[in-house]
């Protein structure tokens, strides 16, 4: 295999403290990156709090929760990276549970974040779909991903989500006649989904984008900053 996949079964027996995650960017860069994304997620969530409290508008609820879940997913993403670099799970029985537990949570929250973001755009048309189904689907995907023990499954699922997201976004924006390069929000959403996939590659196949890691991080931060700026501007927050 050309790349090192994060295989849980292999991990327990052949833990390599020098596993790729932090080779290129370093612990500090990981911390800053995760912190910035988590902060962006929280800024969007709390920045739209008043709008939601006043309107109780479902679209706003799903939108803000999506970014909250992005932030939580990144929190667990950072945890995974730190655990693999600093802590040797072989040392304590309890610590051996950390990698799969944090990965389940990372997969769950990253899946539900994408679902909520899509649902915020399509909830009026997809009235048959209940939010609880999305949570159930995310939980199922995360558990199956861990049980299969091969991150390729989860990556393929997310690529499928990306395709669904691209088609759904195109439908939404086509109908509203807003599909054009001038519509920066449309572009921002597309890039957000693309960089989300790249982040998943980064966490699950650490060596895949070794040389491009910094570019991915900076681009992801740029996308999130753009969305935060737009949200806070429109929400009228200070």
């Amino acid at each position, binding site marked *: 295999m050309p790349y090192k996949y994060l295989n849980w079964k292999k991990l327990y027996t052949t833990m390599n403290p020098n596993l790729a995650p932090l080779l290129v960017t370093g612990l500090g860069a990981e911390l800053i990156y995760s912190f910035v994304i988590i902060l962006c997620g929280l800024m969007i969530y709390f920045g*739209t709090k008043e709008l939601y409290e006043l309107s109780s508008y479902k*679209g*706003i609820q799903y939108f803000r929760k999506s970014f909250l879940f992005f932030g939580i997913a990144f929190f667990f993403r950072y945890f995974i990276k730190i655990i693999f670099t600093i802590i040797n799970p072989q040392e304590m029985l309890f610590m051996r549970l950390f990698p799969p537990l944090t990965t389940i949570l990372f997969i769950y929250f990253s899946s539900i974040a994408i679902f909520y973001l899509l649902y915020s755009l399509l909830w009026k048309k997809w009235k048959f779909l209940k939010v609880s189904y999305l949570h159930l689907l995310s939980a199922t995907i995360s558990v199956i991903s861990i049980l299969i023990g091969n991150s390729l499954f989860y990556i393929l699922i997310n690529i499928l989500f990306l395709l669904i997201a691209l088609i759904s976004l195109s439908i939404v924006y086509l109908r509203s006649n807003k599909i054009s390069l001038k519509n920066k929000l449309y572009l921002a959403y597309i890039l957000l989904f693309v960089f989300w996939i790249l982040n998943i590659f980064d966490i699950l196949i650490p060596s895949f984008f070794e040389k491009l890691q910094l570019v991915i991080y900076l681009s992801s931060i740029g996308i999130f900053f753009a969305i935060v700026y737009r949200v806070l501007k*429109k929400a009228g927050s200070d």
Partner: protein
Amino acid sequence: MKRNRLEIIRDILKIVQTNNSIKQTPLLRKSNISSSKFKEYFLELLEKGFVIESKNKYQEKVISLTEKGFKFLEQYKTIINFIEEFNL
């Protein structure tokens, strides 16, 4: 054109604001919605604290706007712009 939920809430609160305090029956008449729908919206507005019911000097029940109700009317355009901006 059919009003959506937020528009109806805005219209009801605007009527209350304009009249300072108003009885339920004239409010229902001016809102231009069915009595069953009005009841739904009115209960929601009461629960959310946008309006309160009190008694005037004639001991008649009247409805008036709360601070939160005023806030909704102030922020209405912002809410709508946000929803349109992000296609929510």
